[in-house]
């Protein structure tokens, strides 16, 4: 079954063609990085306007790259839940128009379910059940993936997502946007132990996250350093900050693994591209006999291929959306 996936929930306009939920024929992503750099973050109306401008081109490009036409498309899968409302609307409007004009089934999906499937798409041997840590600028969740399309939410962020903390600290340190890759790169020249930043809630039994305290600690230390007239060891600050985030994410994930008595971990979302996060997860999991999986780098950030893969799984369960499909910016993962 050839599925056209569409994803416009935040700042990436993306379309993809995926066969049988596992073979990516094309994955086109138009990133709004130029706008992000200009505004220092996502401005919802600006992002939505860009989606409306690009959506047709991105879909055409996905078809052309795959060497397919709409005649070959057997279903349309689209992100309809969780994201910026005006952005989600553009994708859903496009998806239902194609579904109606071509008389093919439509399915609306939760964005986080897409991220869970990004890793299943990258690693066809990733078994269920497993624990999935999905972490980006917009979300930060621990999910017990009980079965394909059956989830139990174990924990989420109480304030900032880890990726959001990366962005804010990078902006503060003058490293530009997006912050994750910039801090990852600079950290490689820094001392991870130079500063002992707090690991928020790391000892706490709950599986929720909180990163705003860490952010404040980094900013306060930075200001104290300036006030003291000392030279600013940017690379050390970046490395120590990154280490605090990584330690927290790993510790909470391991706690979830213990609680559910599982030996399989999936790490996904934009932050799963972070090299230190991958390194620590790999080392720690190896020691404990836990298998850990990461998506291909191209499937870490928001993309439509993961939406098409999730759509296929749901369609195999017999699920469909009708043409009244609407968007829900704050919908829980559910299912």
């Amino acid at each position: 079954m050839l599925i056209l996936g569409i994803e416009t929930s935040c700042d990436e306009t993306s379309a993809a063609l995926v066969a049988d939920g596992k073979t990516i024929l094309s994955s086109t992503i138009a990133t709004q990085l130029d706008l992000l750099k200009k505004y220092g973050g996502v401005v919802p109306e600006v992002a939505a306007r860009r989606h409306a401008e690009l959506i047709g081109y991105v879909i055409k490009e996905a078809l052309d790259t795959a060497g397919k036409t709409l005649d070959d498309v057997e279903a349309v899968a689209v992100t309809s839940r969780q994201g910026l409302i005006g952005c989600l609307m553009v994708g859903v409007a496009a998806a239902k128009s194609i579904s109606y004009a071509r008389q093919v089934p439509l399915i609306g999906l939760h964005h986080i379910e897409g991220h869970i499937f990004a890793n299943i798409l990258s690693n066809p041997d990733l078994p269920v059940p497993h624990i999935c840590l999905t972490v980006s600028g917009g979300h930060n969740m621990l999910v017990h993936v009980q079965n394909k399309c059956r989830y139990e939410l174990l924990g989420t962020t109480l304030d900032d997502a880890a990726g959001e903390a990366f962005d804010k600290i990078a902006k503060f340190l003058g490293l530009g946007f997006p912050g994750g890759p910039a801090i990852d790169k600079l950290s490689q020249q820094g001392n991870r132990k130079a500063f002992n930043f707090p690991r928020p809630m790391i000892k706490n039994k709950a599986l929720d996250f909180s990163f705003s305290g860490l952010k404040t600690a980094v900013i306060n230390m930075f200001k104290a350093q300036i006030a003291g007239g000392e030279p600013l060891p940017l690379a050390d600050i970046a490395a120590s900050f990154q280490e605090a985030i990584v330690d927290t994410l790993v510790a909470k994930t391991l706690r979830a693994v213990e609680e559910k008595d599982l030996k399989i971990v999936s790490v996904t979302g934009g932050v799963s591209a972070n090299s230190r996060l991958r390194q620590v997860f790999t080392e720690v999991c190896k020691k404990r006999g836990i298998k850990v999986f990461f998506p291909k780098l191209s499937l870490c950030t928001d993309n439509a291929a993961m939406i098409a893969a999730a759509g296929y799984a749901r369609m195999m369960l017999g699920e469909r959306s009708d043409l009244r499909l609407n968007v829900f910016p704050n919908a829980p993962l559910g299912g």
Partner: protein
Amino acid sequence: MIVLGIDTSGYINAVGICDGERALADASFPARADSLEQIVDNIDSTLKTAGLTLKDMEGIGVGLGPGSWTGIKVGVTVGKMLAFSANKPVAGIPTLAALAYSARDKSPLVYAIISAGIRDTVYAARYRFNGNEVIQEGDYFTGGIKDLAPLIKEPVLLVGTGIDSYRQAIVGENGSLKIKIRALEAIPSGAAIACLAARRLEQRKSDNALSLTPLYLKESTAKAFVNKYATKGKK
């Protein structure tokens, strides 16, 4: 040429069908926050009522706005992706021109006016008719209704929704000129969009479906938006 016309720029879903000469269907559905939820269903039911299908359409017309920013993004995306998917030519029609079209046999000169969402701020344009042709004169206007008043110096018909309050505001400003200003209550109709699109498409003046974008009139400038919305970091 049979053309489907849609407009979701205001708080209605307008769907119409025109055969190039006359309207075969002209439906309007109330839709405040649920334009997206309803629009394709409303297109389907309008086609069915007329005994037609999307396949029977020879082109698609879509109201570009101005109007609700969300509404026009939804409408234009639906219009262009229907055209792309069904392989039909598409024509984007300014919603103000569709409003003016509904007054074409009532006055040689009209001002079409649409609320910009904020109190007393409007989008407007001046149109003159040549037969059934709607010709825009000058640029679009965006601003306070009181600032529009000095531009109106000759007898004119104002067209739009809630139009009498705009007429009163203009007469209040221009009272000393003693010119005749009438008002015609109207909504942008799907049939008007369809008929104007049919005219354009018959002249082979279609738009590129992929590049069609809404007519916002108000720019999403950095300052305006950064002031209005909290920025949110990502990734």
